[in-house]
């Protein structure tokens, strides 16, 4: 009886030793070298796996960062400057300070501003509606309102405002990953500079229709009248295809364009309420005239 026990123990030990030797050599032969820095970098990344950097997930980005010769033009939009700085110290490289960006919905065609002229009964999906016809309103460029961008957002930074029928961006949550920009079939959402104290000015319209058609479809459409271009002291505004566009790199946030826009298509965000009332404006213009 004891012999059986002894034999089995010995057999197992022998098998164990053989296996260990085989495994030892196999591990040596088939060893894959992985840069230990990849794990380090991955640990620094936010693990959101949003794809905002353009790579498949955070691990993919970490691998790319470690492999890259220069990481200065690579950015994790979620982590931002701090994360990139931390990664740069690990990799011993320099990074450029990037300006924080934020998603901006460039359509103000709420149910009030832009009345519906037809009813869409198909699948409630922006891309499908977009491929079938111009949409429930008369504007062929504006928001369709079925929330494909909201579905694409992984950071709870968007919701559909039921009153206006437009998507709203929650500034605290938006990490500028760009998922909504890609999701929108009408390219209404744009990544713009977040601006000092989150102050931004932009043309909240993407309609390339001629002024008369655009205005008929929507009260707050850009009609490309060119007043803002004349008013802008910094040459930041250009008009192309019947649509004004404010270059956020040139804009100095003076708000002159906001005042002159006849259709209120230019929107200002997070500014303190204006000190100059309309009366004062007229007085100042009178003084100027004198």
């Amino acid at each position: 009886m004891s012999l059986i026990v002894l034999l089995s123990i010995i057999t197992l030990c022998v098998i164990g030793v053989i296996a260990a030797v085989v495994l030892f050599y196999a591990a040596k032969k088939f060893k894959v070298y992985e840069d230990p820095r990849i794990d380090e970098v991955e640990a620094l990344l936010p693990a959101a796996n949003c794809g905002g950097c353009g790579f498949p997930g955070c691990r993919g980005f970490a691998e790319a960062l470690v492999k890259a010769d220069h990481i200065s033009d690579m950015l994790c939009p979620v982590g931002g400057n701090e994360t990139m700085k931390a990664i740069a110290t690990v990799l011993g490289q320099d990074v450029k300070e990037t300006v924080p960006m934020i998603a901006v919905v460039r359509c103000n065609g709420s149910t009030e501003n832009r009345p519906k002229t037809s009813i869409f009964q198909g699948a409630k999906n922006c891309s499908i509606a977009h491929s079938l016809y111009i949409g429930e309103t008369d504007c062929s460029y504006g928001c369709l309102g079925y929330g494909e961008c909201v579905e694409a957002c992984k950071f709870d930074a968007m919701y559909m405002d039921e009153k206006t029928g437009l998507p709203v961006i929650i500034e605290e949550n938006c990490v500028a990953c760009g998922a909504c920009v890609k999701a929108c079939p009408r390219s209404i959402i744009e990544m713009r500079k977040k601006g000092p104290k989150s102050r931004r000015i932009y043309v909240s319209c993407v309609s390339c229709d001629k002024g008369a058609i655009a205005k008929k479809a929507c009260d707050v459409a850009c009609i490309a009248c060119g007043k803002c271009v004349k008013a802008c002291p910094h040459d930041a505004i250009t008009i192309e295809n019947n649509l004004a566009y404010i270059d956020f790199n040139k804009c100095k946030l003076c708000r002159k364009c906001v005042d002159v826009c006849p259709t209120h298509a230019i929107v200002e965000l997070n500014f303190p309420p204006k000190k100059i009332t309309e009366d004062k404006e007229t007085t100042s213009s009178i003084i100027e005239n004198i």
Partner: protein
Amino acid sequence: MLKTFKVGGIHPPENKLSAGAVVETLPLPEMVIIPVSQHIGAPAQIMVQKGDAVKVGTIIAKQTGFVSANIHSSVSGIVQKIEETFDTSGYRRKAIVINVDGDQWEDSIDQTTTLKTDIELSTSEIIQRISELGIVGLGGATFPTHVKLSIPSGKTAEILIINAVECEPYLTADHRLMLESPDEIMVGTTILMNALGVKKAVIGIEKNKPDAIAKLTETAKKYQGISVVPLKVKYPQGAEKQLIKAIFDREIPSGKLPIEVGAVVQNVGTAFAVYEAIQKNKPLIERIVTVTGKSVSKPSNFKVRIGTPVQKLIDHIGGLPKDTAKVVNGGPMMGKALRDLNVPVTKGTSGILILNKKLASRKEYVTCIRCGRCVTVCPMGLEPFLLMTHGELQMWGDAEKNHVMDCIECGSCSFTCPAHRPLLDYIRHGKSNVGKIMRNRK
């Protein structure tokens, strides 16, 4: 047993309400809107300017590239403006607006109605003339006819199939045409046979049009090589691939054209237009349009000039019925709802269908219960429920592997689904995305 295709298919209520209505010529409208993209392919290039005087048959837009078609003025008058306006596609497209003034025709057009059977032109001249006179497929897809007739080198056509199936419920435009102009159709078919160099032509008609079958069978005896085949009533038998399968019993490989199996399919309306083009030198400036619907007091068939606003047709039948909810361009299965009644009748408008509230409403959809009805009815042998899921989850790679591009958008799946799921909406979405990916790959 009657011939038909084997896989899938449905039989929706036929509702051919206007089958007995003789084709009336609609009075000239005061104004026509002629879009420059009425066909598949590149939009035509505008040849006129504001203020130009045009006659019936004057070319107003020239084809750009091979897959494109000329567009002729359907009225005489003055070009009022060229603007972007809504057309039947639901988008704003470039169109030429002409104010009608009298009814002056170009001198080259033979306006008489006498039948002319002798074909004087050679093959290349026929194709040339068809291309010049802007003939496109009148079944609804509006594919330029001259492209279909130009057979690529290395291929030969064995048979010409004339599509007189009209499987869409409600529509009767082709049915009336067959009853009223059988000889013209036969001559048109003979011309098409000459152009293709084939000896045999088959006209496929569904069994629910016995009068048309009798008439054409009788007429066909006078012409060589043309025969009429009655088919079982089944939707979508009017689809090219299904019709070839039914008549010729050959299957077109995935992603290939009918010429691959030696067949060319032309609509019966196209055959008539070809007759008029070759024998009478008349461009495609008018077509037969069915105006119908359950609530319409007098469902009718009209001969309408291209560019006539849909509103005119509706006015002519006594305005919209009170319970109208939707006006559809085309039939109930494949037609597209109009967003505006001022859109013009184009080369592809085979019918205007007025749906009441009960018929037009789409029900709320619920979860798929995997009953498999959509798979049973799909005439292309696809799995619509799966393709819809791919569309919802944006799995374009899987959609391509499951042959989403083979979908002919007949809508049988959406029609049958007991959960009212918008299968076709998502499949179309998949098709457009997979198509984009495939084009980028090239």
